[in-house]
């Protein structure tokens, strides 16, 4: 990963530079017009966020059962990224909804489950920050519960009410729209992997520094 970091960073940067041109060239959606363009960033970030939640959950499970500190570092990095990506999704979503549906917020399945997922990972970070010693294991428990909770939230809110464009919207996109969508998704995925790597490394350095401090005190 360390060797791949710079080339991947260059690729991601180039993709983000090119993405606006691609989005501009994509055909206009017939009913929503210009505002639909937010979709090319909103949906890939949403997908990356859900992916990140699963990375955190799996990392936490590995940490809990093997006590490998590396897994915990990945989990905390993924949790922070989930929270940040969640904020982006929850800001771009209402912006789009205001134009497309005429309201800022709708209690629909996708929106509500994103909000709930974001809340769970905020709770995870709060626990790590304010829980005191040993909160890494407790937080790992929360992340596993949170991950298992995703399908339940999604299903229950879905039965409760639904309005968001269905998941089936992606395969039915116009050919001109599909390209930019997957391009942006790939760009965000690479960006996600890079940030996750950086954040994990920071956590590792922090642990090493802590160990050095402890060693010098003794």
């Amino acid at each position, binding site marked *: 990963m360390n060797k791949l970091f710079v080339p991947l960073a260059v690729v991601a940067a180039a993709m983000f530079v090119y993405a606006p041109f691609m989005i501009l060239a994509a055909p206009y959606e017939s009913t929503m017009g210009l505002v639909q363009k937010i979709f090319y960033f909103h949906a890939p970030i949403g997908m990356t966020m859900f992916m990140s939640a699963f990375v955190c959950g799996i990392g936490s499970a590995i940490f809990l059962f093997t006590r490998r500190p590396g897994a915990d570092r990945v989990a905390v990095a993924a949790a922070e990224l989930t929270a940040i990506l969640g904020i982006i999704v929850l800001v771009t979503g209402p912006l789009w909804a205001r134009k497309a549906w005429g309201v800022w917020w709708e209690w629909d399945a996708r929106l509500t489950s994103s909000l709930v997922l974001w809340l769970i990972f905020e709770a995870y970070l709060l626990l790590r920050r304010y829980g005191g010693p040993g909160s890494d294991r407790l937080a790992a428990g929360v992340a596993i519960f949170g991950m*298992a*909770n995703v399908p339940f939230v999604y299903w229950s809110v879905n039965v409760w009410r639904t309005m968001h464009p269905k998941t089936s919207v992606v395969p039915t996109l116009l050919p001109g729209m599909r390209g930019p969508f997957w391009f942006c998704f790939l760009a965000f995925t690479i960006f996600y992997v890079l940030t996750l790597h950086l954040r994990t490394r920071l956590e590792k350095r922090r642990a090493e520094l802590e160990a050095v401090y402890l060693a010098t005190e003794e």
Partner: protein
Amino acid sequence: MTFVRAVWLITRKDLLIEARSKEILLTTLFFSVSCVLVFAFGFVREGRAVENAAAGILWIAIAFSGTLALGRAFERERQSETLRALMIAPIPRPALYLGKLLGIVLLLAAVEAIVVPLVSLMFQAPLFAYPWLTVGLLATGTIGFAAVGTMFAAMLVRARSRDVLLPVLLYPITIPVIIAGVRGTAALLQAEVDLPMARLWLSMLVFFDVVFVTLALWTFEPVMTE
């Protein structure tokens, strides 16, 4: 000692303490009644409750008083480090979890036995028109809420700011329980009773209970081991 016996001994200990002091039972009960009352002021217009408010009020009262009961039940274990004593005891950790869970569920059942008829009376909600479905929704909902709650309350015993962290962690995870409970109960209370809908929510709650009790039994040991 067999697993079942260990579970029963833990539950019996909690129930015995409760039977003697009645501390959690009485405080939780009055808290939930006050909760219903506060919501009544929010949702009653011109002497009548807003349509479908009863189901929501009932479940919010259960969730709030459940959080309070969970916090108190484990605060009691924290004083004089009795939780540590239980952890040292030569019983399987999952038995400890199940024992505490059973104690909380029975306690909440006692509270619900008062609050549910009260809501039914005060909001003219025919909660007992389909007694089995109502009881099924309440039982599975309470077990689901308590299954996650017992796990989190137990692990937060050692954490700082545990009072505020418990609801912060518990509510987002138990949102499916609240939705299923409220919608399932509302399906029974609306003018045109929707039995298939109530059964659908009931089966989802059963599924939730199975998944989360299993998950808690599986993760309780590594989370609680120091």
